[in-house]
């Protein structure tokens, strides 16, 4: 008899059973939450019933124009994310392709990378005010310096032989970058972009809580003031859903586009 692969060490995964298990775990989670809240193990003031959260979300969407806040947050996240990406890809690649760029930039990047982003928020507000620019700046600070190192790493991991083969096939450096290096590093790069996009959602909420009069973070913070726990949780839930949906969408594209893996 073969052991079910679920319990085997590094057993093969099967899409169907993984999905079923995932759904079961999720239902179990909701069940436990319901029980704790229903029997007031934790007062409902702090942990409302799941459907109260959903109805709060419905109310917010219908009565409070919450969808506009969602769009504002999404727009902020994506513009900052794209800015980070557009800068990090070429700079990261230069860092590992040209030693001079790498040795000049790496110490600075390493230093800034370890600065806690929340601590930078006040400074960024002083510099950029409380308009859109400061939100973008916070997200950019929180992601660019991580991403640029990840990209540099992805570039470095392209086998040197690939590049040498490129030269012996008559490619110019620009063509090697475009046709070989970028293609070779694409799968791991897309993974890193996906993870970076997740961080953006962390930092946007921080930025919107500290200084904003719109966006999901602002809504959460405003609800907190009146201890509207269901609304706070509805806001958090929204971030979770958007995050999960984008993550899955990118994974799907990853599987579709990198079929050879």
């Amino acid at each position, binding site marked *: 008899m073969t052991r079910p692969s679920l319990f085997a060490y590094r057993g093969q995964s099967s899409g169907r059973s993984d999905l079923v298990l995932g759904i079961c775990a999720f239902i179990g989670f909701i069940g436990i939450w319901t029980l704790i809240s229903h029997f007031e193990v934790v007062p409902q003031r702090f942990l409302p019933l799941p459907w109260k959260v959903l109805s709060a979300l419905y109310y917010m969407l219908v009565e409070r124009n919450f969808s506009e806040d969602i769009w504002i947050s999404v727009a902020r996240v994506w513009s900052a994310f794209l800015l980070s990406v557009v800068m990090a890809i070429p700079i990261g690649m230069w860092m590992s392709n040209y030693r001079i760029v790498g040795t000049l930039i790496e110490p600075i990047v390493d230093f800034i990378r370890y600065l806690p982003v929340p601590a930078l928020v006040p400074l960024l507000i002083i510099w950029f005010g409380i308009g859109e620019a400061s939100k973008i700046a916070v997200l950019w600070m929180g992601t660019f310096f991580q991403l640029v190192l990840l990209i540099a790493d992805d570039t470095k991991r392209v*086998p040197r032989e*690939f590049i*040498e083969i490129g030269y*012996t*096939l008559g490619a110019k450096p620009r063509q090697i970058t475009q046709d070989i290096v970028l293609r070779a590093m694409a799968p791991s790069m897309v993974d890193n972009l996906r993870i970076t996009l997740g961080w953006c959602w962390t930092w946007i909420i921080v930025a919107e809580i500290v200084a904003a009069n719109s966006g999901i973070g602002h809504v959460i913070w405003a609800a907190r003031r009146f201890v509207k726990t269901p609304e706070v949780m509805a806001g958090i839930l929204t971030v979770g859903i958007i995050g999960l949906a984008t993550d899955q969408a990118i994974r799907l594209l990853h599987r579709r586009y990198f079929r050879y893996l």
Partner: protein
Amino acid sequence: MNQETPFLRVAGVSKIFEAEGHGHERIQVIDHVSMDLTAGEFAVYLGPSGCGKTTLMRIVGGLETASGGDVVLAGRKVTGPDRQKGMVFQAYTSFPWLTVLENIRFGTKYRNDIDTAQKDEIARHYLDLVGLTEFADFYVNRISGGMRQRVAIARTLAAGADILLMDEPFGALDAQTREFLQDQLLEINRVEKKAVIFVTHDVEEAVFLADRIFMFSARPATIIEVIKVADHIPGERHMDIKETEAFFHLRNHVRDVMRDQARATEEKLERALRPEDGGE
């Protein structure tokens, strides 16, 4: 091309690596090596591990610069890598994001001497030549290591290289696949008639493939013996010759020379490790 100048001329090539680290170490890897190759000739480099075969081949390919001496290929001095000098490495270098046929087609990508239709035709031609027709649409990580090396060879040929530089291309393969590919390589080159430099550790492989075997000393590499295989094993090259008396003799001779070199290396190493009881 001038009649007197050979197709490939390696003239007094030396290589010294400046090793970074504690102290400034200079490692001489190649010591004034000279050799000529005629067009269509199959040369095999044989030598102890770490003697500098790869380095010399990379210098010929323009991927490494010599510290001294010159390499002249078809009348032009080698200054860098280009389409004229095709490389096949031991590591698999076919691109995983392309299929077998697309990989071979990639060899023609940067050619501007032919048009698109010709590129497709050439890719098909070499696909067939290396016997991978049925695997045209497979991604290369779905095929065996031996097939991947055939893809790499076909890609190099599709690029229209004048000389093939092969660094232990079959080194990672099992014995059967290896024998099969050796035979196939000769078969292909009977059609292509390219000059080849083929690096190997394997004495049998060397004797079977080579027109001429260049045997190298331990580091720094110098040529200690050159063997023209046709002088010892006459006639067409086929799998069967591996069973002949002549093949045996030559193989044993080559093996003895290589063993002496290996022993010399060993002794040198030992002396280096025990400097107190009488070093140099």
